[in-house]
């Protein structure tokens, strides 16, 4: 029997099929856990994120449909929101130190069986290493820490109206740098 694709598995999950949830879990465990870990920087918390994400999937609190794009992108966004939410609930000041590993090129930083992810990560880290510190920082605070528009404006001493532009610029630099490297395919099926 052919393997079910994500959307098919998801609709089985909606019908409360536990095996389908288990399959989805297997498919995404490592990516979602690593991504959660990247955001919350703590193994226990990252596991809590996983738990919440899969409860949301199971209980249908977060609804996916194909209008929302690729299932994997939707799931990653849901995971990011869940992780950010948990960070906020920790009620401590999020630390937004730069993750130095983002700009590492060393092999040991990306020992990974999933080749595409490894390749993607490598290209990304190279691109990140070309960003100015300020730009890396704003991406970190905005994307990985989910800091509010207001907080970012205070942190960077920027008027509210220019924050969005700065973030966009930093992200665009990253993208440009990526496409110079031959780019990262959007068609990856990770």
């Amino acid at each position, binding site marked *: 029997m052919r393997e079910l694709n994500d959307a098919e598995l998801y609709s089985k999950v909606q019908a409360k099929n536990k095996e389908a949830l288990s399959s989805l879990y297997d498919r995404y465990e490592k990516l979602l856990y690593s991504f959660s870990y990247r955001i919350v920087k703590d193994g226990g918390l990252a596991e809590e994120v996983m738990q919440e994400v899969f409860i949301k999937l199971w209980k249908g609190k977060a609804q996916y449909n194909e209008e929302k794009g690729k299932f994997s992108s939707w799931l990653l966004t849901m995971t990011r929101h869940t992780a950010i939410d948990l960070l906020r609930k920790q009620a401590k000041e999020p630390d937004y130190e730069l993750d130095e590993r983002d700009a590492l090129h060393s092999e040991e930083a990306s020992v990974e069986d999933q080749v595409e992810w490894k390749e993607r990560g490598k290209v990304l880290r190279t691109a990140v290493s070309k960003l100015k510190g300020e730009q890396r920082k704003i991406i970190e605070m*905005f994307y990985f820490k989910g800091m509010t528009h207001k907080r970012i404006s205070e942190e960077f001493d920027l008027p509210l109206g220019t924050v969005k532009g700065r973030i966009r610029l930093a992200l665009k630099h990253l993208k440009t740098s990526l496409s110079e490297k031959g780019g990262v395919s959007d068609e990856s099926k990770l």
Partner: protein
Amino acid sequence: MKVNCEQLLDYFNGTLSNEEKERFEAHLVSCEECREELKELEELTGDLPYLSIPEEPPAGMKERVLASVFESDTGTKSHTTNEKPKVEQTNNVATLQTDRKMKQPKWIAPALAAALFLSLTGNVYNFVSEGDGETSQPEDISSLVKAVQLQPSEAEASAGSAALMSEDGKMNLVVQVNDVAETEGDQVYQVWLLEGDKPYRAGYFTPNQEGKGEVAYEVEYEGDHDWDAVAITLEPDHTSETPKGKIVLSSGL
């Protein structure tokens, strides 16, 4: 820029309140600029998750996560904690993800029969609707070795059932209880399998607010065992190697 448009970043990060979120989504319908900016943000950040360094998931995380997911349906408290669990628990306790074990009608049936018998005048409907297993189609995968009703030690209202089932050569003990007292602090109800007078740990649980609790445990003790009895004690925490508390429910096997 309109006030609403300023919320785009917080909307993207999911940090708006529900009310704000709804309002912003209504705004999105009418604001093409925001729609385009949102789409652009999604495209520009689409690769960023892959910046994460691959981390090795902790041992047993799948069992813990799925157990808590499926328990979230029944309202039973989850065993998943932040702490790194001991290997023993990781491998054995809370393997509820193979829910057939929990929903196996073959063992639910004796429980039901007993409930009917015990409470002919009671609210059987409640039990049936909450029994959680009766509506699903039986999947005949594991076979029942033995099912027993657990007897309360004192004149308490507690009741429960235990079933030993074998599945793919593995032995599982499934315990379900009703009307047990709430636990305090780190207290847990520990299930034991007894061979002669030697107790073996066989899973633990904390009941929900309605006094219901359940646990499925994969019995993996080396060698052949001929279990004589199953018992549940109230323990100060989940680390007891031998029973410290009094027996709450038990039955011969």
